[in-house]
């Protein structure tokens, strides 16, 4: 039985994992870099150890340092969260060698699914549909040409070790094959140290739909239905929902069965996600497997009623799954918005800084997974996601209304965020009707970046607020008090004392 868990992560996911540990009565150990002494995961954990400088490579990515803290603190298990070391086969193997339970899959499964060509082969053998394309890596132009003619243009050339769009080329014309092939290979070589590439048919206007799976160490595997993740920008998910507005019950059941088959094909244990690419006619193809907890796991938790982190810990403990497939059903509808510290109007440029004020969205059907607090400075070294806003309602329309309401409540100053942009998505016809694919943001950008109609009053009110805020600052400067923090308290106080 696991007695103490080191969480090898930071930010909202570290806190989220510690929440489940606390509910299970398992003490937690935080690790933190120089930039994170004031971070919430350090405050939240039962123990906290410093592991090095701010850059991840010297702290959160340092296997040796993290193992050393686990030994020092007598943690007998490590949860890697997502990102950082979560899909690092060497880390999983090292934990095993050190006698520490890695709360995630064994190294072989990570390797098998991490290499895209191997993963494709495994899926083909398991009877899971894959995007039409090559089975083995492509080395020369002649072979590429032959294969591409069979598949038909357009195609994608992809790095086998790839991810994040690197080593990837869209080929529309035959004359571009040669240059794209060599470009992808050299990019793959420099990015991943491996120039293996393969070819897949290009699916136009695809949907990105993934299935959550859980598998124990006794060969049992179940799926927890799908997540629709087609609202993306720069290959990054922005909004996720479940159920998918696209899938029929029949296709859902079929995809779920394939997801379970995929997990069994690599002797998987733990939580994982099978990503599918789906066209408008619900033809679906295995894209890749994420061998970790996903950012967007809470929408599944809400609609299926399962705490995925607790299940991961139970699986790591060697327990059998506590659910059978037939126990599970989707109830109601959930949507997640990722809140980033960024400026949507300036090409989503990151906006790190100090949080001056937060009013968090609360109330019926709202889950908020965050880690920032008033006075906290978001470091420049890590991901700009500051929280995830998850709503549930009995149906999709009500869930959209609730998300609009929650976004309306969410007030934050000090940094710019994607909140106004997300609110616009909730008002976009294509989103409201559920008829959207991965081109949604691109196709709707005029609407998403336009301002609302408002009588002239709104603009004048904004001017008045600016006037008051700025003139108060000037007064502060004049009175010699040039602290930037407590702007306004005095004025506010004077109002209050009049009331009491």
């Amino acid at each position, binding site marked *: 039985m696991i007695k103490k868990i080191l969480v090898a992560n930071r930010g909202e996911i570290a806190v989220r994992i510690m929440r489940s540990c606390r509910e299970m009565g398992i003490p937690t150990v935080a690790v933190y870099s120089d930039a994170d002494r004031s971070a919430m995961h350090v405050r939240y954990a039962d123990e906290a150890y410093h592991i090095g400088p701010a850059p991840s490579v010297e702290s959160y990515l340092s296997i040796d340092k993290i193992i050393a803290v686990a030994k020092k603190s007598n943690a007998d298990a490590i949860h890697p969260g997502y990102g950082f070391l979560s899909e690092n086969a060497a880390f999983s193997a090292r934990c095993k060698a050190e006698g520490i339970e890695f709360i995630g899959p064994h190294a072989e499964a990570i390797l098998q699914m991490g290499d895209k060509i191997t993963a494709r082969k495994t899926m083909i053998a398991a009877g899971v549909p894959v995007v039409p394309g090559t089975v083995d890596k492509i080395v020369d132009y002649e072979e590429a040409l032959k294969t591409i003619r069979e598949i038909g243009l357009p195609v994608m050339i992809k790095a086998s070790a790839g991810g994040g769009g690197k080593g990837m080329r869209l080929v529309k014309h035959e004359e571009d094959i040669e240059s794209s092939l060599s470009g992808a290979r050299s990019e793959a070589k420099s990015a991943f140290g491996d120039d293996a590439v393969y070819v897949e048919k290009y699916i136009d206007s695809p949907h990105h739909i993934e299935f959550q799976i859980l598998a124990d160490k006794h060969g049992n595997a179940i799926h927890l239905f799908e997540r629709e993740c087609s609202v993306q920008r720069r290959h990054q998910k922005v909004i996720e929902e479940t159920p998918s507005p696209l899938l029929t019950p029949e296709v859902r059941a079929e995809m779920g069965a394939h997801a379970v088959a995929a997990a069994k094909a690599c002797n998987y244990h733990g939580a994982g996600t099978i990503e599918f690419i789906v066209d408008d006619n619900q033809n679906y193809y295995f894209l890749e497997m994420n061998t970790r907890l996903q950012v967007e796991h809470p929408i599944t938790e809400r609609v299926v009623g399962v705490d995925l982190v607790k299940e991961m810990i139970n699986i790591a403990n060697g327990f059998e799954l506590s659910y059978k497939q037939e126990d599970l059903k989707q109830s109601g509808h959930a949507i997640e918005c990722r809140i980033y510290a960024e400026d949507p109007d300036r090409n989503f440029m990151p906006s790190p*800084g100090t949080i001056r004020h937060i009013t968090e969205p609360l109330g019926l059907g709202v889950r908020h997974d965050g880690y920032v607090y008033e006075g906290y400075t978001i470091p420049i070294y890590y991901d700009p996601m500051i929280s995830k806003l998850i709503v549930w309602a009995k149906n999709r329309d009500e869930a959209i209304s609730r998300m609009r309401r929650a976004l309306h409540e969410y*007030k934050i*100053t000090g940094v710019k965020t994607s909140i106004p942009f997300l609110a616009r998505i909730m008002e976009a016809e294509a989103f409201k009707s559920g008829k959207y694919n991965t081109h949604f943001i691109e196709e709707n950008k005029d609407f998403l970046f336009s301002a609302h109609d408002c009588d002239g009053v*709104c*603009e004048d009110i*904004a*001017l008045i607020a600016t006037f008051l805020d700025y003139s108060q600052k000037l007064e502060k400067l004049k009175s010699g008090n040039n602290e930037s923090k407590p702007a306004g308290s005095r004025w506010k106080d004077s*109002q209050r004392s009049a009331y009491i």
Partner: protein
Amino acid sequence: MALEINIDGRTAQVTELKRDGNLVTIQVDDEIYEIDALKVGDGIYSMIYKGKSYNIEMIESSSPRHFTVNSFHNSYEVEVIDAQTRYRLSRSKGDSADSGNTVISPMPGKVVRIPVKEGEAVEAGQTLIVVSAMKMESEFKAKAAGIVKSIHAAEGDTIDANKVLVVVEPLVD
């Protein structure tokens, strides 16, 4: 007190006529507003005007005079115009100082690369400096051809927001 404030391109005269606690009378161009304006948090205002309740978030931007002002449905870019700004605007005929020949960091970050040297001639569109923040690299490019006059950062430096990084002297045409 009166201020000149630019909001999304419009320049407005804003004058305080009267203040009684949080009840303020303010003139915006020709319009006079009697408004109940309460600061409820750092950068958060609750305004009641003719019974309507408005919530305003003031987010400081690239300088203490620049704000993003959010009222949920609308997001405005606002600049308070002081004497210095006015001088700058008059001199550059509408282009703000940082648009043409000066790179100012819009956010804190780390300098990844500076592919130019002081004294070097640069083309329009040429990358002057690459800054990384939150796993994302931003390239800042020359808006016009010119000569790199000064560089105020080094590779590997951690920089604050609103810091002048590179100044380019434009070619006189």
